[in-house]
């Protein structure tokens, strides 16, 4: 749904690292290198970011379009 606050296994804070991670990966950088830069050295924390899909962005689109339709004059 949305990036978890902490790593499921060890409890390290990861909730503040997703945006930076996804931005750099989208720019074409190697994910492993970005994870190293973020200081995530255990594989439990690394898989949290690597395997994450931000589904809330898809869900929020329904609310956004719903809003636009309401505003459209009939």
């Amino acid at each position, binding site marked *: 749904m949305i990036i978890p*606050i902490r790593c499921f296994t060890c*409890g390290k*804070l990861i*909730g*503040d690292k997703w*945006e930076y991670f996804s931005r750099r990966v989208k720019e074409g950088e190697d994910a492993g290198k970005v994870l190293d830069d973020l200081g995530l050295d255990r594989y439990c924390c690394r898989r949290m970011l690597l395997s994450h899909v931000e589904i809330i962005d898809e869900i*929020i689109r329904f609310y956004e379009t719903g809003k636009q339709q309401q505003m459209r004059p009939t």
Partner: protein
Amino acid sequence: MKIQILEKNDISMRLLIEGTNAPLMNTLRRIILSEVPTMAVDDVVILENSSALQDEFLAHRIGLVPLKTDLDTYNLPENCECKSEFGCNLCRVSLVLDVEAEDHTIVVRSSDFKSENPTVIPVSNEISLVKLAPEQKIRLEAYARLGKGKDHARWQSVSMCTYKYKPIISVNTELCNSCGECVEACSRNIITKTGKKIEIRNLENCTLCQDCVKACQETPKAVKSSWDETSFIFAIESTGALTSERILREALNILDGKLVEFLKQLPVKKT
């Protein structure tokens, strides 16, 4: 006991502790994991939530946010003089979150929390709590208390606390033919080859995997990998709620308290 600091900053710490035993190291590890108190939200009053996340989902996320902890000012709720279920100024901090997305989608971050006490704030300002579409709104009050890791993971002060034996790797120069097989096999780059000589460096990174011994073609083996059962490499990584040094100090105080209590209970009561 001899303690040498290998690496230390606010978040993490690595120590080489010599002249001790595994039970003591394990005691320290278990106390750090489950007994050192930190601050976390454990009650959330949701006044309004029209976001895409359900109330309990949101409350759970808020609970997991690590907060900077002031152990000198605040008491554990069970030790607080107020004896109140709701808490008082000495055992509870309230944080208010009041955000509304107006005409475009926003991300609600941990920096949007308004804390009653400016020293008790989330460790990072960038933690995304939820996303709000236009006209969605969140209004809630969260109550943070001190708690222990054994009650819930949100109160755990560390994200890692480990110890391992100090590794000993030795190369017998008479048997070694400098083939370099062990250098190739070592995944931690501890064994290096300079000229015809096999050298060992950064020994504390060794995981005692024995790959170097398996790779050695000589019989008997020229490389020997073993460990010192009285020396340990002890590592902590804090969640940011407390400094790594403070965690260790608190753990030792708690251990002291437990030992005093044990001695008090020890004499057999005559009936």
